[in-house]
């Protein structure tokens, strides 16, 4: 197990280094160069040169990369050239909206996906089974943007049929205004959560169906569990490693929805900020933000892989690591 973790950690660090090079390169193969773009059209050459020197763009690429990496390691993400504010503090502020949104969305997805997945497995009436089947397929096929719009049409204050939740923006005072902050995240989290919950439900149902036709649940029922108990106590536990992997991948997929939803609901999170910065060509900020996100998802992949191992004793004890 320890060896597996070390191997996987090495892979994580290697991938992180690789991604950083790719992001760095993507910014350097721009038509024109960053300084020209940042200086704006038709700006005098000396302005471009000043910006170039200010950004260190006149130095060799290897040194520029080294500067950037060195800064990242010290937690210094550089300064936005547009606002002059440190990218670190901007990103931290934006993350304080995005991560609660992702977590709330994930909670909704797990609640919807696991409970409906179990219910669909246990349902016996054909009508009920068709309903679950329909929800699983249609729910997962809705574009996040449209799902968000529908929820706004139904529940938002102002335009909605039943005005329950705010649909635009985040409170000025941020999390100091806790109640309002939470309320403003309800519709966005529901949008993301229900769509991903529908996919999770399909995975849960198919994993449980596989287990029901295996011997494990028969053995559990033979010991005295009812079918429902066997599915809930043994089935879900045995499906867990598989579902953890699915949720891990789903998490990565969720971020598209989160970015769209942040823009739709005008929540100043990482997705919203990234799109704004990209539009403003604030490339130093974009570079660090992209790297932060990539690092986050690689770390998630690492955690999911280790968790997957821990949950399955058959994998945990295999010392050779499987590959």
């Amino acid at each position, binding site marked *: 197990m320890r060896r597996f973790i070390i191997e996987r950690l090495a892979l994580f660090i290697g991938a992180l280094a690789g991604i950083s090079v790719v992001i760095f390169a993507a910014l350097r193969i721009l038509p024109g160069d960053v300084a020209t773009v940042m200086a704006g059209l038709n700006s005098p050459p000396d302005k471009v040169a000043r910006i170039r020197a200010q950004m260190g763009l006149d130095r060799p690429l290897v040194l520029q990369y080294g500067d950037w990496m060195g800064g990242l390691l010290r937690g210094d993400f550089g300064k936005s050239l547009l606002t002059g504010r440190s990218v670190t503090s901007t990103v931290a502020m934006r993350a304080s909206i995005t991560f609660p949104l992702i977590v709330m969305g994930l909670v909704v997805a797990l609640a919807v996906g696991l409970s409906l997945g179990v219910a669909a497995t246990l349902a016996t009436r054909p009508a009920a089974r068709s309903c679950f089947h329909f929800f699983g397929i249609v729910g997962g096929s809705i574009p996040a943007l449209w799902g968000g719009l529908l929820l706004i049409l139904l529940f938002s204050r102002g335009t909605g049929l039943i005005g329950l939740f705010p649909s635009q923006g985040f409170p000025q005072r941020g999390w100091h205004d806790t109640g309002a902050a939470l309320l403003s995240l309800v519709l966005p989290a529901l949008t993301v959560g229900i769509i991903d919950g529908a996919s999770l439900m399909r995975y849960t149902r198919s994993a449980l169906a596989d287990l*029901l036709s*295996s011997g494990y649940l028969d053995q*559990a*029922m033979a010991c*005295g569990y*009812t079918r429902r108990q066997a599915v809930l106590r043994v089935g879900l*536990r045995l499906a867990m490693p598989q579902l953890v992997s699915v949720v891990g991948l789903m998490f990565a997929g969720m971020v598209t929805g989160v970015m769209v939803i942040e823009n739709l609901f005008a929540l100043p999170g990482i997705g919203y900020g990234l799109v704004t910065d990209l539009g403003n060509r604030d490339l130093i900020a974009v570079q660090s933000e992209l790297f932060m996100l990539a690092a986050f998802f690689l770390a998630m992949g690492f955690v999911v892989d280790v968790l997957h191992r821990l949950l*399955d*004793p*058959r994998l945990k004890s295999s010392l050779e690591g499987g590959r």
Partner: protein
Amino acid sequence: MAIEVSGLSVDIGGRPIVSDVAMGVADGERVGLVGSSGSGKSMIAKALLGLLPRQASASGSARLGGTEVIGADETTLAGLRGRYVGVVFQNPGSSLNPVLSVGRQIELPLKLHYDLDAGDRHERVMAMMRKVGLDASLAGRYPHELSGGQQQRVGIATALITSPRLIIADEPTTALDSITQRQIVDLLVSLVDGAGASMLFITHDFSVLARATSRCYVLDRGRIVDSGQTAGLLASPQVAQSRRLVEAARKLTLGGPDMETL
């Protein structure tokens, strides 16, 4: 505990798997149910235990110790399973819960049906492990760390921990090599007899049947085609299907065509 089955039919998606089966097992009796693979014998076991897949539907009557199990509700069935009826499955490697240690696996039926404290349960599990020939040190191991024979001993211990009145063994030896097969059958027989329980032993292998049962039914394409004393059937099978099964068993275990002259 006795089994009385009459007019039992099982359909899967409209296709008949078991048709109009009548059979019985008396108190304390060991009875075999033999048939080639696909004859529907496992479906009979599943019907008796309420473990039929959802697509399947059963009709007719099956009573375990007087309780009707066809169409019974889940609570009734779960109250029988693991308490009055113990089950040994064909392939312990793919039926023993892989995330449960051996000790916790054997303990499960006790935990579900009896109100004992942890110390009592532990004592009984240890005693049961000794009975089935498992070293006490294996209690903390997981099924995948055990050999096939050891796994099946865990399966038997799980089935017998609550001293059930009836054991249903569904091909308990098929996944094992022939020497281990014999050990497991002998263990099962001695434990069942020692407890005074009855047993329904399901197999496709006549040679195993002779060791395990006194009487048996022959199943072919979902119907009972023959029945009688196991020894008699084995010595002079009257029905074509029985003859085929007996010959297959001889070729497999008794070694060679010379025995066919018997």
